[in-house]
């Protein structure tokens, strides 16, 4: 029972809305701590993206471990790292601290799967990325955008 509740909590917390807005307003060249490429947030329209569904959250309440898998929309999605970071940032606020969380892209869904997974699960790198002001701002915009 506890397992289901935790899972529900987690997936609701992760209803991250990734706002895509006009290139001219949001284009930022960022030195990303996490990834080498400089993703530019480009979009054609305003849209909300539901990144994680309930099925992709696995909870092991005995060991206090959570596995979250998410599926980037395209194989070479440069947003994969950002999405992962957003998940980390959101979870940090919502979840009891003792859970160990692993975040991965769903197998076969991304060209740099191994590299993305490795970065998202290196806590030192995640902390460094979230201390980068540009990245932090982007992440905050993503996770707080729906709060009115």
């Amino acid at each position: 029972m506890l397992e289901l509740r935790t899972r529900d909590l987690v997936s609701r917390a992760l209803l991250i809305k990734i706002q895509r807005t006009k290139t001219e307003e949001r284009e930022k060249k960022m030195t990303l701590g996490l990834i080498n490429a400089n993703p530019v947030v480009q979009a054609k329209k305003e849209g909300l993206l539901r990144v994680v569904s309930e099925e992709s959250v696995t909870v092991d309440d005995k060991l206090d471990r959570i596995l979250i898998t998410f599926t980037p929309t395209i194989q070479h999605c440069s947003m994969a790292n950002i999405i992962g970071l957003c998940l980390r940032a959101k979870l940090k606020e919502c979840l009891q601290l003792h859970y160990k969380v692993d975040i991965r892209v769903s197998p076969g869904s991304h060209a740099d799967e191994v590299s993305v997974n490795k970065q998202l699960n290196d806590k030192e790198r995640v902390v460094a990325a979230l201390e980068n002001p540009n990245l932090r701002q982007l992440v905050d915009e993503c996770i707080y955008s729906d709060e009115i």
Partner: protein
Amino acid sequence: MKVMDKNLGLEEVQKLEGHTDRVWNVAWNPAADGVIASCSADKTVRIWEQSSLTRSWTCKAVLEGAHTRSSVSVLRGHESEVKSVSWNASGSLLATCGRDKSVWIWEIQPEEDDEFDTIAVLTGHSEDVKMVLWHPTMDVLFSCSYDNTIKIWCSEDEDGDYNCVQTLSELNNGHSSTVWSISFNAAGDKMVTCSDDLAVKIWKTDISRMQSGEGYVPWTHVCTLSGFHDRTIYSVHWSRDGVIASGAGDDTIQLFVDSDSDSVDGPSYKLLVKKEKAHEMDVNSVQWAPDKESRLLASASDDKMVKIWKLASEP
């Protein structure tokens, strides 16, 4: 001293509370008994001292930014966070490393009011360098990285230029993921490393050959300890009396020793103690006290605690 007593356990001596965020690292003062420094994500360094009367530790100082202490020297050069620092045995050289993938060596200039000169900027790692450590007796520098390798640097020519003389990678029995920590045994002829690949590896070299001035003698793999931790192993430390401590993301602290069995394949190691739930969260650092008798171990964790443990016979 052989550590073969079957009833040994790790007993919690004290919990040092005070930090308000995860504690990344602890270090024992090599000269002053019972003095520990800890650094935290709360942006402070705390100094804890053991009272000679009560034998318990209290926080003696909290070092924050520019407030408490005036700095003597500021060493600039790294392009992003500096993750680890290490003094060589004689205290004349300081090595640093960071997320910018480089390793820097600084030499202290006593005639110039203790200024530090950069004598080397070593690039070679393809990713963040997690830790640097000087060999305990020779000026040979070791670094480990997110690129899964351990690199060994020394100065072989008269110019004093440091070069990478060996890389321990997956190709020569090395780790298959980020290497987080390195430690040497007291004699300096063995080294232990730990990784995100959930293994602890032991390496050795022929120290007498190396000290005789023959030139660089390569390190070789001795054995791999796997199946003990099931989360990233962040720290390993080899005590002066031969006990290897490891701390990991599974919240445990484990101790290993030379199994002392005569095996054809060479030395092997076995688990001495497994301390489950040593902390409430990831164990980031384990460090043995530098003296030979106390058998005290300090640990730092994401749970904001520093703990002091004693390796002793269980009742």
